[in-house]
Structures are given as structure tokens and as C-alpha cells.
């Protein structure tokens, strides 16, 4: 199906508010959306959502012959698929410019940064090695698929465990998980992508652009980086010129985001591990949010679902208003620190607090270096909470 066109009205409005350093979802220009990492019940499956963008990564392994030129190394294979349910413009089995770019960037990010120790995947030199395959599927596209996919892929790789193998002479035994505990891959570092979108001749930039912001952007810059401040990949697309200082400024911002996200991944991994060791239920089903549809006669529907004694008529219960709002979906985790919500889940919500006006402060902080910046960010978010405790998460 063809793409949905963007109207002049949307374009003009988006550009106008970006020039005012605001965004349609109430975020600051340098804020991420709510990032959520969930692990499946199998090892090596991970779903990451950035707001409404959702990406699923699955890791699988099999034994195969190594490449001729690298006989003692395993093989890492990365594949990105744009599922047709993700967006009306995605089609099954057709390579578009978008999907090729995404595939290539993911390959550069994961394979060429050599983040997975491939030598440990060797079984018999020149004959048998493990092939690790990362399948990334975009389940829903609402912009910034690459950042989302890069987190999903690396988190899935870190979560994955391959079966144990013993070699005795000519005999190779692959043990089932009952016989011997499966072995995790050794991950040297976690390269993550951060996307910057530029507007008004590179004057304004946004981190983590939404789909509609991506459509009106002049160009994007992607920085792949790990928490040791090593740049693994850098790419600029679109028709724009960038000043050297801007690139440097972006790498600084990318570093802060990468540290934040690496922390979040580790938090989620640890969380999943403890849930598993305790024998609790884990997997996607345990961590999905429930939304109630309230199309017509809403009070009744709530009653049906929750089996509680809510008043039938919607007008009579003004007393319980505050309570109901608290239970409503508009309550989001507040603040910049990762929040643990459920088993195998961690959420970060910098978009949760409204702090448009404090943006200047943050940009100034950027230039003074990383440590000061972090301090000012924390200050800003604390201020935001104190001055407007009643402000809803969305506005």
C-alpha cells in the first residue's frame, strides 16, 4: 500500500513548534520517549518499545562450517525485517531503500564493531562453528526504528544462551539444556545507536524523532556508540550540511543517552535473571500493559473487566475521580532513572515530566562537559517534579 501523505498543515505546525523548542508529545528536544525492554520466556528474545515504536529481536544458533578466510571464528548474521503490520507502507518480501539502509546500519553496528566474541563460538577449527542469527522484526513503526532495533538486538544477544558442546576426538556432542546449562555469548561491549534529526538548516535538532518528525526532517545523523565512549558507526543522511561543532556536540549527547540505555539494558537483564532464578513466571505475556477500551457506556465496561463495584452512571461518582485517575493509563513513571515495573521489564521515561522551559539549561550543560550536564539534568527534572506535581504526564 502506498504511504499516507503528510499534509502542509502538519508540516508547518511541526516545524513551527520545533523552532519554539517544543515537541508534539510534550518532550524536550533531547528527550527519549518511554523506553521499555521486555524479555521473552525463551533465551534470546527481546522486545523493545520506544513509545509506540516496537521492535522484536530473536536470536537463534546453529552449527555450520566457518568462512574460509576465518576458520576459527563463528558467524554472526543480522537480518532486519519490516513487518507489514508495522506500517501501511511496509510490504512483505520487498526490499525497499529504507529496509536496506536499516539492515546495513544494524550490520555495521553489531558486526563491524566486533561486540560479540566470535572466536569463542568456534567448535572445531575450519570445520564446525556456531552461527548466531539475529532476526529483528519491526512490529510497529512510529519513528526511530534504528535506535529501538539496536537496543533490541544487543539486549537479545546478551540474553541469549547457546547449548553447551563437548569435543572428544572426532566426536562432537551438543548437550540439551537438561544435561548441561546453556552458555551465554560473550559480549565485549554494547554498541547502541542514537539518531538525531535536524531541522531549519541544522539549527534545531531532536533526539529520538517520531514518525511524523522524521517525515519533515532535513536530515538525520546516526551515531553508534558504546558506554566506553567509542564510536562504532556514524552516518549522515539527507540534504544538509553540518558544522563540525554540531557533530561534536551530538557525540556528547549520544554518550549520555548510551550510558542511560546501557544501564537500562543491564537493569532489565538483571531483573529477568532474578525472576528466572526465583522460578517466577516471565515472558512477554507477564509484562504487557492492559488497556481498556471505553467507546460507549464506559462505566459499564470498566465494571465488566475489573469486576469491582463502580457506580453505573458516569455522572454520579465525582467523589472517586481522583482515585480513578490514579488508576488510569495516563500515569507514567516519572523521572530519568530506570524504573522496575514487572518481571523482566525496565522502563525509562524521560518524556514523563514536562520540562520544556528548562531546555536552555541542558544545552548549556552539554558544553560544560558531561559531569556538569548530568547534574543539571537531574536538577532540572527534580525542579520539574517539585514545581508542577499536578501536571499530567502528557502535557
Amino acid at each position, binding site marked *: 500500500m502506498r504511504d499516507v501523505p503528510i499534509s502542509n498543515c*502538519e*508540516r508547518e505546525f511541526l516545524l513551527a513548534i520545533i523552532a519554539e523548542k517544543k515537541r508534539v508529545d510534550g518532550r524536550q528536544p533531547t528527550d527519549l520517549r518511554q523506553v521499555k525492554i521486555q524479555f521473552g520466556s525463551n533465551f534470546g528474545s527481546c522486545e523493545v518499545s520506544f513509545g509506540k515504536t516496537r521492535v522484536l529481536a530473536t536470536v537463534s544458533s546453529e552449527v555450520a562450517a566457518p568462512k574460509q578466510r576465518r576458520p576459527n571464528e563463528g558467524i554472526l548474521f543480522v537480518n532486519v525485517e519490516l513487518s507489514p503490520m508495522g506500517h501501511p507502507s511496509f510490504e512483505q518480501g520487498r526490499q525497499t531503500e529504507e529496509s536496506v539502509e536499516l539492515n546495513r546500519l544494524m550490520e555495521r553496528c553489531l558486526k563491524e564493531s566486533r561486540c560479540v566474541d566470535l572466536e569463542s563460538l568456534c567448535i572445531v577449527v575450519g570445520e564446525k562453528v556456531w552461527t548466531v542469527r539475529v532476526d529483528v522484526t519491526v512490529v510497529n513503526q512510529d519513528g526511530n526504528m534504528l535506535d529501538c532495533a539496536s537496543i533490541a538486538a544487543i539486549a537479545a544477544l546478551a540474553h541469549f544462551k547457546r547449548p553447551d558442546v563437548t569435543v572428544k576426538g572426532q566426536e562432537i556432542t551438543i548437550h540439551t539444556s537438561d544435561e548441561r546449562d546453556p552458555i551465554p555469548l560473550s559480549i565485549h561491549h554494547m554498541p547502541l545507536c542514537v539518531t538525531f534529526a535536524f531541522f531549519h538548516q541544522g539549527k534545531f535538532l531532536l533526539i529520538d524523532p517520531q514518525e511524523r518528525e522524521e517525515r519533515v526532517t532535513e536530515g538525520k545523523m546516526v551515531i553508534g556508540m558504546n558506554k566506553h565512549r567509542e564510536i562504532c558507526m556514524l552516518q549522515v543522511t539527507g540534504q544538509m550540511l553540518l558544522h563540525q561543532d554540531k557533530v561534536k556536540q551530538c557525540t556528547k549527547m549520544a554518550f549520555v543517552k548510551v550510558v542511560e540505555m546501557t544501564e537500562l539494558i543491564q537493569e532489565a537483564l538483571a531483573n529477568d535473571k532474578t525472576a528466572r532464578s526465583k522460578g517466577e513466571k516471565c515472558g512477554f505475556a507477564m509484562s504487557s500493559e492492559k488497556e481498556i477500551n471505553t467507546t460507549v457506556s464506559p462505566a459499564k465496561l470498566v465494571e465488566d473487566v475489573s469486576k469491582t463495584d463502580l457506580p453505573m452512571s458516569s*455522572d454520579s461518582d465525582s467523589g*472517586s475521580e481522583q482515585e480513578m*485517575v490514579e488508576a488510569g493509563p495516563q500515569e507514567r513513571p516519572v523521572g530519568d532513572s530506570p524504573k522496575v515495573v514487572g518481571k523482566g521489564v525496565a522502563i525509562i521515561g524521560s518524556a514523563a515530566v514536562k520540562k520544556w522551559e528548562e531546555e536552555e539549561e541542558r544545552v548549556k550543560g552539554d558544553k560544560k562537559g558531561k559531569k556538569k550536564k548530568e547534574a543539571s539534568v537531574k536538577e532540572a527534572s527534580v525542579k520539574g517534579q517539585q514545581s508542577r506535581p*499536578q*501536571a499530567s504526564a502528557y*502535557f
Partner: protein
Amino acid sequence: MAAHMDRIVLPGDKISDLKESETSKKVVLGPGLRTETEDVYACKPGVLKFKEPNVYWIDTHQKRYVPVKGEHVIGIVTQKAGDIFRVDIGGSDQASLSYLSFEGSTKRNRPDVKVGDIVYSRLLVANKDMEPEVVCIDSHGRSSGMGVIRSGGFLFKTSLNLVRKMCNPQCVLMKSLGNKFPFEVMVGMNGRIWVKGRTNKETVALANAVCAAEHMTNPQIKAMCHRLADALAGFE
């Protein structure tokens, strides 16, 4: 027929004991219901709805628009092709809009429509075998609010059930928002909503309020509008 009211059904569920009209002994099946041999089955997941005397339909959470004759939709002009404009209304096919179907337009006096403009229009033809056609006039040749919208504001897309919910007279969303501050709004049944507040900030807040109202009940919406007004006032 209390047993049927607001029951959640899934595709494949058999729906029995339908209430027939007393005179004609017939039942009207709306969207989401179909007959297979003698029985009626649900073909969409959602809430089964009933209206006196004999109308049944399923209310679903859906984003894909299926054009219905007579509905007001917001379209985006994608192409100017001679005498007609091609308009994207979110359906499977683009709709056509004649240059003569604007108020006061003649062969000489053509309306000023550009590619990318948004038009509030009404579906004149909506048929599964034909291309949909939209017009920007009513049967008296008046615009009655329809036409090209070029006065700023913001257009966004929501699910179809949110739009239906907003248009329901029992829904308090528009009323409670309107009590707090003035704004303009245009709701298309194809899931597109255009809003314009006094400032850009208000427009953003309005758009978010409408989107947030999707999974809220009436009291929650009221409370949310309260907080929104407080938050907006607190900004200055």
C-alpha cells in the same frame, strides 16, 4: 435484550437469540457481523452493540477506515489531475474531489486548492466497487463548514473508535475541554482530527488530551481536563 448488550465477542463467536423486529421479523446486521448458512457470526473482535428495534453491530478498535456514504472525513489532497483532485481519506483507495463541488465555484472561478492541503468533506459515493467521491458542499450548494482548511492548527490521526466515542453525545470530552479554554476542532470519521488552540502550546495540549482520552471513562476525562487546564495555566 440485556444479554446482548455490551458483550465482548471474538471472531468466530456464534451469536444466537437475536431480537427480531416485531413487524418484519428481520434483524439488521451492522459492521463486524456476518451470516454463515443460518447462523450469525462475529468477524471482528469487539463489543457487541444493540439498538432498538433490531440493529446489531460490533464496536471495534480499528485504525483502517472503510468509507461510508454520507460520513464527514478529513482528506489530504495528493494530486491535481485536470478537473478533479485526488484526496487521501485513509481508505484503501484515494477519493476524487471535483473542482465544481466547492461552494460558489464555477468553471471560471476555480477553488484555490494546493497539493498537501487538508479538506473537510463529505462522502458522496462510497461503494465497494467504485472509487469513493467526496464533495465540499451539501445538497443546497452551501459549504456548511466544509472546504479547504488553511488556518494553521494541527492534524493528527487516531483510531476510529476514539472518533466515534468523541461524537457520541454522552461523551464529555469536547464539553469539558470547551469549558476550560476556547479552541477549534474538526473531526473526520476516518480517524483524522484537526485542532487549533489559541497558541501552539494549547494546540499540542489539546491533541494530547484527545489522544489520552481514548482509554478513559467520562469521570477520568473530566479530571484529566481539569488537570490539563491547571497545567496550562501553570506554564505561564
